[in-house]
């Protein structure tokens, strides 16, 4: 297969320049060290996985990246600007969108309205204009609605467009949450356990969507995941955390064969190395 010239790098091909670099990040909560001197780089257009056993600091890392937690030391370089910490509204305004481990949707609102909230930072007209829903505000809302309809089409959730999300099955709620993140047209998409609690079919669907987002829009994706098989199948690079420390970083194959990872994460079942 030959790639189209202007297409973003397909999987396994050379990736772009670093979009985000975390350097020597340490984060403690009282006496508990959540992250200990962790550094890694996320390159443009890649799917970067962060894995590790329970309590390894994976979610803390995402929360540091999008500014929800303040690290005690270290720096974050995003799009060439180095900061000692991110702030949530800065990260959102600069193109970082995320989903949550425990779905955080507006349960009483419809799928459509939930995804529309993802457009919030793109709205130019103020509250009053929007309340009047007239003239330029109306035109603007129609544009946003059109974008949201493309997201709905992309995620194949037309049938639940007008359904309150609280009544949807878990797997679909996860998909709506991904939709809301996509509506923000992110440059960097953070996914916190996108496949937790899903059945095999739902997981496969979600993998397909993650790969499609990456391939169609060139969105850089950082994801945290428990399911090893999923991570190894779809990621370009994998960082492994254990007790807040980074113990490995590399391609799925490198990580799979790393003795520290096998001991810390996979246990000591050495002969299933290649099973993934």
């Amino acid at each position, binding site marked *: *297969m030959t790639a189209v010239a202007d297409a973003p790098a397909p999987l396994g091909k050379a990736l772009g320049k670093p979009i985000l670099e975390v350097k020597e990040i340490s984060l403690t909560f009282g006496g508990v060290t959540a992250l200990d001197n962790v550094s890694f780089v996320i390159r443009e257009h890649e799917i970067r996985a962060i894995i590790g056993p329970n309590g390894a600091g994976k979610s803390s890392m995402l929360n540091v990246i999008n500014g929800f937690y303040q690290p005690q030391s270290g720096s974050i370089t995003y799009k060439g600007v180095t900061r000692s910490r991110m702030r949530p509204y800065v990260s959102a305004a600069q193109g970082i969108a995320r989903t949550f481990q425990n779905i955080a949707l507006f349960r009483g609102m419809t799928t459509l309205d939930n995804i529309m909230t993802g457009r919030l930072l793109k709205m130019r007209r103020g509250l009053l204009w929007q309340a009047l829903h007239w003239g330029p505000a109306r035109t603007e809302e129609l544009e946003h609605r059109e974008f949201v309809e493309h997201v709905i089409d992309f995620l*194949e959730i*037309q049938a639940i467009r007008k359904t309150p999300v609280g009544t949807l099955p878990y797997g679909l709620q996860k998909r709506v949450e991904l939709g809301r993140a996509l509506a923000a047209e992110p440059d960097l998409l953070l996914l916190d356990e996108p496949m937790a609690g899903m059945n095999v079919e739902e997981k496969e669907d979600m993998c397909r969507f993650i790969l499609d987002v990456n391939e169609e829009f060139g969105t850089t994706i950082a994801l945290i995941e428990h399911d090893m098989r999923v991570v190894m199948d779809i990621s370009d690079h994998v960082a492994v955390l254990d007790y807040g420390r980074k113990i490995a970083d590399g391609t799925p194959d490198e990580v799979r064969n790393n003795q520290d990872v096998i001991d810390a994460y996979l246990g000591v079942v050495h002969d299933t190395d290649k099973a993934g």
Partner: protein
Amino acid sequence: MSGRGTTLAEGDSFPKLLISNAALRGARPAMREKEFGIWQSWTWAEALDEVRALACGLAAAGLKRGDKLAIIGDNRPQLYWSMVAAQAIGAVPVPMYQDSIAKELAFVLTHAEARFAMVEDQEQVDKLLEIREIQEKAGESSFEKIIYKDQRGMRNYGESFMESLADLQAAGRAYDAEHPEFFDAEVAKGNGSDLAIMLYTSGTTGNPKGVMLSNDNIIITARNTAELDGLCDSDETVAYLPMAWVGDNVFSLGQSYTTGFCVSCPESTATVMFDIREIGPTFFFAPPRIFENILTQVMIRMEDASYIKRWMFKFFMDLARRVGPSILDGRPVSALDRAGYALGRVLIYGPLMNTLGFSRIRLAYTAGEAIGPDIFDFYRSLGMNLKQLYGMTEGAVFVTAQPDGEVKTDTVGKPSPGVDIKIDESGEVIFRSPGVFLEYYKNPQATAGVKTADGWYHTGDAGFFDADGHLKIIDRAKDVGKLNDGTLFAPKYLENKLKFFPHISEAVVFGDQRDEAVAFINIDLEAVGSWAERLGITYGSYRELAAEPRVYDLIKGEIAEVNRDLAKDAHLVGSQIHRFLILHKELDADDGELTRTRKVRRSFVAEKYESLVVALYSGADHAEIETEVTYEDGRKGTMKADLAIASAATVTAPATAPMKLAS
């Protein structure tokens, strides 16, 4: 809405009809599709423009007169136009079932010798690439070009033989500009006797057969029946049944192109019911299964409604059942009942039909299998002019249809215009009509088996005419068997009686050359699930619910009711169902147990579950079974189960002797 435009389009081929419609009613809508949440529409003039670009594009890409164009995808305007575009340049469209797995498609693609394939999206492209690999390994010639409509996910496919539909049309427009006379000249070469389309019948046995239908077959049949039912260009319909099915071809292309009515395509298969509600079709076709599903939904929702609403629903539905069909057929009804019905229309019937999207329906058909009398009466009592028809791919659908005002639940109506029907000496229904197909593609032996030299088609159905000249179909002629005591055994008739209960979604009855009739049952997960919920029965899966003793009791009661009903008829009293079991899995087309049109493949099921059939006749109270199941992604797994077997109450035969089957 503008007045009724009843002028029929002129022409003996689809491209000619399209040109005629563009001239007659160029500004009226021809097609609609919901995309990105909005209904997009195309007028007849725009449709002609799209078809012209497609036809020129296909010709420029090398599709020649007589070539086959495979079409695979959901109902999309572009795919309908591709069919007409292929016909315009003398090629033959071959629509295929879009949910078929690659292996099934491979047979049809190879058999039809399709050179080009027009598909909807990446999913279908991937199947075709898989097939291409198989064909190349086997040394068979494969298709030369794949054209895809949706660009999504396609950017990393670099194969030179693939092209997007947009690019093909752009090339077509350029070709058209260079050769402006090409399209009209090609269209003029076509005529009524040309092969219009090849439709592969899913078939309950053996490989699918390619039914070749001419322009005349479809257009004359469509025109005759559209005239009879008064269809006109202000009618609206929704195309949501597979494009590979003959009915969709006759309704969405045949009748639309002859009368000029607008066809709307749903957004996705999951949104069909919402889309129907938004369009509000005036002409609607659905197989009994869909009417049944809609009714089940209504009943489930009503059970959750407040007491007053339930009481009103029951009161007015009882009234509607009593007088609704008579009012619809214009028979005399007392003034009091009329007033009650009018009130019911305001309070119940109108809002209900509106919720379902059926407010504007003038004409609705159902066919394919027997419809439950309860279901049929429900819709008719609400004022929907629902009628039954009888037809098949080999007859371009219409063989018989119920005329307005002469609708009965247990017949399929009178011969359609131009159709001659006879019952031959063995009881089989045979007919001759303008719709009788040309032949099966590359299968003269099969053609000779069903079509006589003077054009009579043997349906394989057993039936007879009733006193009013209505045709009544009992079963497939070959399926009508007898029990060991000689009693008539019509399995489909029994299965339909069982399936009329909302709790039973599928049934397979055995009994030919046996002492008594026994049954496999599939429960309806939604209906039984809701019933179980009300009784506080917990279950984790279909399988658990199916094994629940109280569900067995529920089904036992329903079978006993069927038996009581059978006992009233001297022909059928002997075929009461003695024993049954509830299967641990739903019968599925992916496992080969149903056809793609969801009919039971009886002999296959009998073979696959042979140990269960043996157990049903052995007197055992349970049976173990291990079956292979195919998941939606094509992987296979096995399922083990220990099924309970139960007996159902039967009624002793009345004094009259059971009728023996004439040999």
